[in-house]
């Protein structure tokens, strides 16, 4: 019965992505040449995607403990945070970049599906989805094809699955031209103590594969994710999995029903590396082993070999260890939902995952040798500071033409039409943002989404964030800013930041310059997570994000450590959005106490959009200042003093104020921003220095100043909210300008629909 297997040759080993050295370790540990199935198992388990071999040493420097964490990073499929009231929140972010580059619809769809399974395999019901997307320049037709396909894929899967997509970010830059980033995040809720675990620790218990049948799709998907994209990648389309959100919805309901019924002793979703990864990881965690009889796996196509069955990445499947004696109940639950539940093996105690095919053993590998934290390789890669940093840090803003008040208005209107700043309504209207009726604040009018928890007075605030441009220009500071800004967004929405999940998108780790940015950026994230007290609960690393060039070389995307921030809104009264609320209210800017405006335009959207430059240093950030500003704003919100809040980020103070007008119901503002000596108007309006938040309030200036007394922050009254929708900015000696609502709204509302041919 055993199918003819190819002979194990050095060429075959290399096409499996294993180095000669790694192959040597395999032979040494097994004491023999591996079988073809075993070679496949090692190949996927030791791929970058599954083993984290080039990143784990650095990831371990991140702070991964905190009072609210119920499981540590990497212990389960997702992080688990105590949110009070006997409830916990499971959340995680993951990349699906390479599949989306060659097949945007299915790549993005299965990215959404995969991250949902990470949440409900823990027994948590997903309540919200987020995403973080990066593309090249929208003027490129291929980029538009990618954006269209990715957005349709996210919607096509998530809308049918029935979880609202509540927040996200989309950024465009030529750096992502050939290698888009598609990061998907899911957030779920579970009662404390009712979670399921990804372990096989009951010897003799039956092992089930449940959900969809197994096909040939996605074989070696994990390996595909662990190499650079090339021109030949079009041929890798068959490596991309195909999603079926309907089956996922059934799998969700059946899984939660089975866990609630107490028939599940252990469960792990099948994502990358399918049966291989789930069986090895559950065995290693349970310090047990598994015997699998693959002929019992429900197959979608005839003639599938054990190699294919072990490596398939067919979606919508789970591996379950049944509670002994409850097998019939388990089968009944999945039968009710018209899903397969096939007994394919049992838990053993010898530490081996043994794979049989009609009785004949085709693989016997020690589980511990395969997994992260066990025998999988751990590499410390060489680093080298990128040469380009000498050039970018030497940038001097004085070489740029200055602008006057009229020029400032023109620049503001132009920036509002930059696809990076313009409204993403064209994108998020294609997502169901409201299903499950918990979305208090969805995409658009706030810095973070707010999702209420039914039956309580609390809500979760959540946001994805990363400005890859900053990380490119200053990896350490950029990593810090990614965390700081995500936390600031959550605070502006009324939430206390609790914990972080991260998706680290970088280039080829074997390039020392890339690894330098990786190490520095992770270091920066760690700095910020420690100061802001938001531990890292887990996430995902995606290396090899490189755009192929015509000369055969490749260029890494901007280093993009996407942060998914979770926060708790303690009372629904604290929910805050960014739009102006009422004419006559005061507009305040809160900043660190010692903050002085500098000619700091480095890494700004203004430099990029207006001057075509990605240069300078990343903008100013001091983490202790940042913490003081965030704490102060949250205190003001909780005391009921804040009617709207919006942080100063992409596009600077000018865009921040314009957005607060655009998000409002026809209101504007009249503000005075007189620059001090030597301060350029462009830097004043469009510089992106961190730790600044604009908020509106009915407080008088004296009252506001009294409230922040002794707090290492200061508030500056900028002006007043007005009727009529115009933004009037007084620039002192430089004059003033007024932008009407329609002058601002036209570019802001239409830039993306126009680029996509929708208007």
């Amino acid at each position, binding site marked *: 019965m055993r199918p003819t297997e190819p002979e194990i040759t050095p060429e075959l080993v290399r096409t499996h992505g294993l180095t000669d050295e790694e192959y040597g370790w395999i032979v040494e540990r097994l004491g023999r040449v591996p079988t073809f199935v075993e070679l496949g198992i090692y190949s996927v388990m030791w791929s970058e995607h599954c083993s984290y071999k080039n990143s784990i040493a650095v990831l371990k420097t991140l702070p991964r403990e905190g009072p609210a964490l119920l499981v540590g990073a990497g212990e389960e499929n997702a992080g688990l945070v105590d949110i009070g009231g006997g409830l916990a929140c499971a959340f995680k972010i993951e990349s699906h970049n390479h599949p989306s580059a060659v097949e945007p619809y299915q790549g993005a769809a299965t990215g959404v599906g995969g991250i949902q399974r990470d949440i409900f395999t823990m027994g948590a019901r997903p309540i919200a989805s987020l995403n973080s997307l990066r593309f090249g320049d929208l003027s490129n037709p291929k980029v538009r094809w990618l954006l269209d396909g990715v957005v349709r894929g996210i919607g096509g899967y998530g809308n049918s699955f029935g979880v609202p997509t509540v927040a996200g970010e989309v950024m465009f830059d030529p750096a992502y031209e050939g290698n888009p980033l598609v990061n998907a995040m899911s957030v779920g809720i579970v009662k404390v103590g009712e979670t399921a675990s990804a372990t096989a620790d009951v010897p003799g218990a039956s092992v089930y594969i449940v959900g969809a049948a197994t096909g040939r799709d996605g074989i070696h998907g994990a390996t595909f994710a662990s190499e650079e994209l090339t021109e030949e990648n079009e041929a890798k389309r068959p490596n991309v999995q195909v999603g079926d959100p309907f089956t996922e*919805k059934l799998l969700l309901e059946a899984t939660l029903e089975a866990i609630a019924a107490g028939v599940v002793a252990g469960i792990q979703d099948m994502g990358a590396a399918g049966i291989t990864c789930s069986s090895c990881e559950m065995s290693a965690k349970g310090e047990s082993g598994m015997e699998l009889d693959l002929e019992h796996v429900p197959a979608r196509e005839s003639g599938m070999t054990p190699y294919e069955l072990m490596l398939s990445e067919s979606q919508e499947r789970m591996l379950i260890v049944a509670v002994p004696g409850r097998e019939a109940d388990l089968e009944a639950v999945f039968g009710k939902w018209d899903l397969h539940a096939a007994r394919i093996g049992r838990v053993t105690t010898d530490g081996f995952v043994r794979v049989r095919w009609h009785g004949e053993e085709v693989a016997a590998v020690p589980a511990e040798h395969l997994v992260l934290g066990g025998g999988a390789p751990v590499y410390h890669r060489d680093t080298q500071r990128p040469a380009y940093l000498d050039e970018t840090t030497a940038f001097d803003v004085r070489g740029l033409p200055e602008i006057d008040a009229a020029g400032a208005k023109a620049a503001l209107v132009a920036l509002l039409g930059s696809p990076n700043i313009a409204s993403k309504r064209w994108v998020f209207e294609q997502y169901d943002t409201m*299903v499950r009726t918990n979305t208090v604040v969805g995409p658009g009018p706030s810095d973070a989404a707010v999702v209420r928890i039914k039956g309580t007075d609390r809500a979760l605030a959540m946001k994805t964030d990363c400005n890859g441009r900053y990380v490119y220009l200053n990896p350490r500071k950029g990593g810090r800013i990614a965390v700081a800004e995500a936390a600031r967004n959550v605070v502006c929405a009324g939430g206390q930041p609790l914990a972080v999940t991260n998706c680290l998108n970088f280039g080829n780790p074997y390039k020392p310059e890339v690894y330098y940015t990786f190490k520095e950026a992770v270091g920066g994230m760690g700095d910020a997570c420690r100061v802001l007290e938001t531990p890292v609960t887990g996430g995902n690393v995606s290396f090899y994000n490189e755009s192929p060039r015509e000369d055969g070389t490749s260029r890494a995307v901007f280093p993009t450590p996407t942060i998914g921030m979770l926060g708790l809104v303690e009372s629904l009264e604290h929910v805050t959005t960014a739009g102006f609320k009422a004419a006559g209210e005061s507009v305040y800017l809160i900043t660190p106490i010692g903050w002085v405006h500098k000619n700091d335009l480095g890494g700004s959207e203004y430099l990029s959009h207006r001057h075509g430059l990605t240069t300078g240093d990343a903008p100013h950030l001091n983490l202790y200042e940042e913490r003081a500003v965030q704490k102060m704003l949250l205190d003001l919100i909780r005391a009921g003093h804040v009617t709207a809040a919006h942080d100063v980020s992409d596009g600077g103070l000018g865009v921040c104020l314009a957005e607060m007008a655009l998000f409002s119901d026809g209101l504007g503002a009249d503000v005075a921003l007189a620059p001090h000596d030597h301060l350029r108007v462009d830097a004043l309006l469009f510089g992106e220095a961190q730790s600044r938040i604009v908020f509106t309030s009915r407080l008088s200036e004296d009252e506001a100043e009294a409230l922040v007394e002794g707090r290492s922050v200061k508030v500056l009254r900028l002006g007043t909210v007005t009727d009529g929708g115009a933004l009037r900015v007084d620039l002192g000696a430089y004059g003033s300008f007024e932008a009407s609502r329609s002058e601002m709204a036209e570019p802001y509302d239409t830039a993306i629909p126009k680029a996509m041919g929708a208007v």
Partner: protein
Amino acid sequence: MTAAVLVFPGSNCDHDAYHAAKHVFGMDARFVWHKDPLPEGLDLVIVPGGFSYGDYLRTGAIARFSPVMQDVVRFAHDGGLVLGVCNGFQILCEAGLLPGALLRNRGLRFRCKSQHVRVENAGTPFTNACTVGDVLDLPIAHSDGAYYADEATLDRLEANGQVVLRYVDASGQATAAANPNGASRGIAGIVNERGNVLGMMPHPERHVEALLGSTDGAAIFRSLLAAEATA
């Protein structure tokens, strides 16, 4: 008021309809699995939104064959109140309880947004708490929401007052721009001839709590409670 919320494989607004009916409006609501019979003594059946059977075929085309639908047809013929929202509307059309069909949106994209609709008939059990001309803000979320019927059917629906809700702009004008999906004559919701079965694409259950942005959907549920009180 006793209400059943049907659950098909792929329903995903079932919990929302249940939450609105039970927790917001105090109805005695229960879920009914699609393979189970309808319980006795019901006042209302809600066919919720979602993607029954994945909607890989024509929307609602498989769900109409679910065992529970025979009971729903019988219940409707006996004069029971049936509310179909979004996918529920599609299923009711496929089941023959309502005329016409829901086609792919003009623009061929899923659309989720707040949408204004105008009440065209306040004499139904679903709209008796409204006044003709009331403009309600009700969210839409669908790919296949363009109501279609032949001209003769549309004329008959209009003449009989079976067009209950129509897409309009904020000021109540039924302009082309206010029609989000290309529905014939901007139709957002219709009743059957007898007036006891309503299908609507917008989601009233999403706008019943001020916290979530609007309470305009409450008008539909309050009407149902009032209809029961006078029945």
